[in-house]
């Protein structure tokens, strides 16, 4: 069974790698198989992990409250017919409202307060002071770049230009870091092909 799994995984990997040449039937086969299998898998996961424990088992146990979210979920299916299309709008409005409510405080906490708290630190001694000064200059310059509702005068424009330089340096570092991580993934896949499938490399 394990040999079959390795063969299937290896052949599908090669099918996907053929994309490097051009779009072709092998890639299309892997693509459609992947999309289809993932849809089927997710359906099973949703049933096992969401519907069964949260709705079916609770309702069977006498708790009728889960019928409310279940009804909202079913209302989304109203989209399938023109006459019941309006029902789905109610469910979607509820869904968007709940998620926006959840998103706002967590965004405020993670993206604003956490960063402000990190920025408000006393300057260190010696070289650390230069580091702190760079962080402060970067913060002010990047804020200047992202200030949209004022026409840029000369000072604002200069600050925004410094801000974009800070951003590009950060992006360059992030790019290099992520590309190295992707190369590691490629190495792992090639090792799988050469070791587990072709037995060219010795076992780990």
């Amino acid at each position: 069974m394990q040999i079959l799994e390795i063969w299937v995984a290896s052949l599908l990997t090669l099918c996907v790698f053929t994309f490097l040449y051009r779009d072709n039937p092998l890639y299309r086969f892997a693509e459609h198989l992947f999309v289809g299998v993932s849809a089927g898998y997710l359906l099973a996961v949703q049933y096992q992990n969401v519907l069964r424990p949260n709705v079916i088992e609770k309702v069977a146990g006498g708790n009728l409250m889960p019928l409310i979210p279940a009804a909202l979920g079913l209302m989304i299916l109203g989209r399938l017919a023109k006459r019941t299309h309006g029902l789905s709008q109610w469910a979607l409005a509820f869904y968007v409202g709940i998620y926006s409510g959840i998103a706002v405080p967590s965004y405020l906490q993670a993206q604003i307060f956490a960063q402000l708290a990190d920025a408000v630190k006393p300057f260190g001694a010696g070289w650390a002071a230069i580091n702190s000064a760079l962080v402060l200059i970067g913060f002010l310059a990047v804020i200047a770049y992202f200030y949209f509702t004022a026409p840029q005068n000369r000072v604002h424009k200069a600050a925004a230009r410094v801000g974009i330089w800070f951003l590009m340096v950060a992006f360059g570092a992030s790019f290099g870091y992520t590309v190295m991580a992707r190369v590691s993934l490629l190495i792992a896949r090639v090792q799988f092909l050469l070791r587990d499938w072709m037995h060219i490399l010795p076992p780990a």
Partner: protein
Amino acid sequence: MDSSPDLRWFNLDRLNLLIGLFLFLSFLAINRVRARNLDSIYIRPLPGLKALDEAIGRATEMGRPILYVPGIGDMSEVGTLAAITISGPVARRTAELGCELRVPCYDPVVAALIDGVARQAYSEANRSDSYIAGSVYYVSATQFAYVASVTGTMLRDRPAANIYMGAFYAESLFLAETGNQTGAVQIAGCDQVTQLPFFVCSCDYTLLGEELYAASAYLGREPDQLATIAAQDWAKALAVVVVLLGILFALLGRPELGKWLQTS
């Protein structure tokens, strides 16, 4: 040892968040009044948005579709909310010019919402009949199955323009690089700092971080959205003042402000 949950109506450790939220809401209320006169709020033009119009025009001339990719975020992500908002003006422009729009979606709820927004946009452009049911479609909620499908669409249908707006993760480079190889005009907007470098490298125009949020207001020109952008700018100005004061106080041996900003 008592293991019963500590049930409280309000977590006092998060009082700072509540104050921040009320301040922002007051900025929003003031700017909503200001925004009643649309000319009273200026928004800096963003080059990527000017290119959006050109890209749709180019696609119309070439007789090829526009591919609008709303990322793989769900409704809890602000980037996804912005992607849904931006899809409105994009759909309206494609409707006006008679260009085909395709929107492959990762999240079924996002697909349903963008479908509604696109239908509305076609209706506003008096082109309801031109809307093709199924042009906004769900693909897969598995990250790389979604990537495989979207990249396949790029190579087979050769869209004239690829527009990536929303929350993107490891798939960003796969999508943008494939789109680049097809020669399509590419415009991206993303609020994930780790993914922005890939879009900057492989797209013609990139909306960086908050530009994505400003884009929806800029395109929509609706008073509420303009007010939101103005309120955000006021909040940024306040953040600068708070940071400068915080550093000053910290240097004077009073680090209370920095501690107050920390949330649990």
